[in-house]
C-alpha cells in the first residue's frame, strides 16, 4: 500500500479521534475554537462529539475528523523496526557460537527517576510476564544499579566494570526531562573516550528508537519490550561488531 490513511469503517475514510483541553470557557465559541484548531491541524470536516467544562476557563473536547494525508507503507523497512527476536535458548546458543566471553551489562534508572520497574523487568532474574531477565542468561554478566543513579556515578561504574552494554531506563519523566538526562549521559560517555567500546541502550514508555538514535544511543526500546528483545539485540550487535573488527584488523594486516 503506497497511500495509507486512518481506517474508521471503510478504506480511506481517514477518520481520526482526538481528545484535548482548551484553556477557554465552555461556550459555543469554544466548540468553534476546537474545530478551527482541528482544521489547522489539517483535519477535514471536524466534528465535536463531546465537550464539557472541567473548571472555569477550561473545556475538554472529543473530536472526530478526516485526515487527508497518507503515508507510503511500502517505503518503510520492516526489518529495521521490528527485528524478529530470538528466544531464550536461541540467544544462549547464538552467544555460545558467536561470542568469546560473557557480555557485561550495566543498567540503571538515571537522573531524578526513582522508578526501577523498567530496568528490573529487563535485568533481574525474575524478568517480566514469564520472560526471564538478562540475569538469568549464561550469556550475560549483569549489574543493576537501581534507581535515581546520577549519570556521573553510572559512567564511573561502567568504566570500572568495562561494560559492553549500558542500559538506562526512564520511566517517569515530565516536560522532556529525560531528553536532557539522556543527552548528558551520552556526552559523558563520549568524553571518556570509550564510547566505541560499548552499546548504549535506553528504554522507557516515552523512548522511541528514533529519539534514542538522535540522542546518540545505539538503540531505544519502548513499551511492549521484553527482556529477550533486548538480549537478542545485544548478542547480535556484539557479534556483528566483533566480526567487523576482525575484518578491519585483517584488512589492516
Amino acid at each position, binding site marked *: 500500500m503506497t497511500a495509507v490513511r486512518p481506517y474508521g469503517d471503510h478504506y480511506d475514510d481517514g477518520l481520526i479521534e482526538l*481528545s*484535548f*483541553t482548551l484553556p477557554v470557557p465552555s461556550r459555543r465559541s469554544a466548540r468553534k475554537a476546537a474545530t478551527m484548531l482541528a482544521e489547522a491541524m489539517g483535519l477535514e470536516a471536524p466534528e465535536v462529539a463531546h465537550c*464539557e*467544562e*472541567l*473548571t*472555569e476557563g*477550561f473545556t*475538554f473536547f472529543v473530536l472526530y475528523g478526516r485526515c487527508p494525508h497518507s503515508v507510503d507503507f511500502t517505503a518503510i523497512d520492516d526489518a529495521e523496526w521490528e527485528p524478529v527476536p530470538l528466544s531464550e535458548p536461541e540467544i544462549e546458543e547464538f552467544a555460545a557460537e558467536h561470542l568469546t566471553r560473557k557480555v557485561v551489562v550495566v543498567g540503571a534508572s538515571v537522573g*531524578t*527517576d*526513582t*522508578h526501577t*520497574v523498567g530496568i*528490573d523487568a529487563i535485568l533481574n532474574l*525474575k524478568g517480566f510476564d514469564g520472560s526471564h531477565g538478562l540475569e538469568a542468561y549464561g550469556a550475560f554478566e549483569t549489574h543493576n544499579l*537501581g534507581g*535515581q543513579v546520577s549519570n556521573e556515578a553510572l559512567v564511573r561504574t561502567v568504566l570500572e566494570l568495562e561494560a559492553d552494554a549500558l542500559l538506562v531506563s526512564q520511566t*517517569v*519523566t*515530565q*516536560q522532556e*526531562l529525560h531528553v536532557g538526562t539522556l543527552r548528558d549521559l551520552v556526552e559523558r560517555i563520549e568524553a571518556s573516550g570509550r564510547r566505541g567500546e560499548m552499546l548504549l541502550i535506553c528504554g522507557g*514508555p*516515552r523512548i522511541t528508537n528514533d529519539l534514542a538514535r538522535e540522542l546518540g544511543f545505539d538503540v531505544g526500546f519502548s*513499551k*511492549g519490550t521484553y527482556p529477550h528483545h533486548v538480549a537478542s539485540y545485544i548478542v547480535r550487535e556484539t557479534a556483528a561488531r566483533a566480526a567487523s573488527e576482525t575484518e578491519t584488523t585483517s584488512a589492516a594486516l
Partner: protein
Amino acid sequence: MASTGSKLDLDAGLVDGCRQAAAAVAEGVAERIAGCTTVSVERMVVRMLGVDGVDRFETPLPNVVVDHVHHQGKLDRGIAFWLGGAMARTGLSAQQLAEGVAAGELDLCNPDGADPEQGIKAASEATAEALAAIHRDRAQRGGWISQLDDAAADRPQRYVLTATGNVYEDVRHAEAVADHGGDTIAVIRSTAQSLLDYVPFGPTEVGHGGTFATQQNFRIMRDALDAWSCENGRYMRLSSFCSGLCMPEIAAIGAIEGLDNMVNDALYGILYRDIHMRRTLIDQSVSRRINGYAGIVINTGEDSYLRTADPVESAPSVVASQLINYNLARSYGVPDEQIAIGNAFEIDMSVENGLLLEWAQAQLTRELFPECPVKFMPPTKHMNGNPFRTHACDTLFNLVTVATNQDMQTIGVPTEGVFTPHIHDRVLGLESVEYAAVTARDLGDEIEFKRGGIIQSRADEVLRGAAELLEEIVADGLFAALERGRFGNIERREDQGRGIEGIVECGEDYFNPVIAQMEVGAPGVESGMYV
C-alpha cells in the same frame, strides 16, 4: 464506616493470633529504635520552635542549626537543649539565633553563663506555645469543616493526585477535581525529593513527576482549596507525602499548614528508596506522633508491594504488613480513625476470576480494620498504555470500592502508565467513580458470599498466609524479614541504606520537648480528631 457483620466468615482465632503477632512485631521494632534520634527529628524540633527560611547558600536554616551542633558532636543532648539554652542566655528568638548561626556570629554550644534549667524551661515554653497554636488552628478548622457539606460522609472519599511540577498549575488541576466531585487533593512530590535530607524552601514552579513539598507550596494549595470550599460549601481535603528522609519535618509543616492527610508509611522508604532501616523507623515513629497529635489521617503504603511483587502470590504479605503498620502507628499515638490502611487492585486482568480475588482482599482489609478508614488504590502495574482499557479496568475497581465499603479510594485515570495525568484525565476518572458510586450505592449491603466459595476461600487462604508470615517475623524480627525480601520482593540489608549518617544515639540527658509534650496529647481532644 464499616458495614456490620463478617461476609467472609473469617476464623476469629486466626484473626486474633495475627493481631497479637503484629503487636509483638511492633514492640520489637520499638526496642530496636529506642534511645536514638535523627537529624530530621531534630530539624523538626527547630521548625516547631519557629525557625524557617534559608541562608545565603539556600540551605534551610533548620539544617544550618542542626548541622552546627551535630558537627560539634553534641546532638546527643537534643537540639532543643542548645537552642533553649541560647534563648535563655540571650533573650533572642529561635529564628534570630538561627540567623546568627547562619551568619557565623554565634555558637549555640558555648555554655558561657548558661543555666541548663533555664534553657530547658525556655524551650519547653516555646514548644508549648507552638503546639497550642497548632491546636488552636486545628480546632478552628474543625469547627469550620463541621459547618460545610462532606460529600464523603456516606460514600468513599475520592482521593486525587496532581503532579504538574508547578504549584500554580496544580491549583488549576485541583479546582477541576473539586468541580467534579473529588474530595482530597494529594500533590505528588518531585521524584527527587524523598532522598533530599532537607525540605526545600519557597513556592516552586519546576519539579519532575511532581511538585516539591515545601511549606509555601502547602500554604498555596491550602488557601486555594479553602477558597473553593468557602465558595461551594463543601470541604476539600489536602494531602501530601510524609516520606523519604524528612518525615518528621514534613509532618511538622503539615500540622502547621492545616493538612488533612499524609501518606506516611513505616516501611516505604526502606523498600522503595533504599533508606536505612533504623533511620526510617525512627523517623516514622516521630512523624506519626505528630500526625496523630495534629488530627492528620495517615495512609499506609501496602499498595506498592503489589506493584513490585506478584499481586496474587504476595497478598498475605500485604495483610501482614497492614497489621504491622497499624500497630506501629497505634504505638505512636495515632488513633484508629486516623489510620488509612492501604490496599490495591493490581491483579492482572487476564487472571481468571481475578476480580473475585480482588473482591476477597478488599473485603478482608475492610473486615480486619473495622474502625480504620481503609483506602483502596486503582490498577497501575498491568495498565499497558491503552487508555480505553485502563478506563474499563478502573470502572471495575470503582465497583469493588463501593461494594466493599472502602472509606477512601485513589481515583484511576485512563492515561495511567503513560504520563502524569492531564487535566481532563482526572475528570474522566472521577466520572467513572461517580457512575459506580450512584448505580451500585448499596450493593455491599445486598451481598452475602457463598459459604466456602471462591471469595471466602481466598480470604481464608490469604489470612492463613499472613498468620504464617507474622509468626516468622515475631520469631526473627522485622529487620530479618526485610533482609529476606518478604515485602514487595525487595531485599534490604540492615547495615546499608541511605541516611545512616543522620542517626544519633541519645545521651542520658537527651531533651525533646516536642515529643514529650505530644505524648501527653492535645488538651481536650480525646482521639486526636478535631471533627
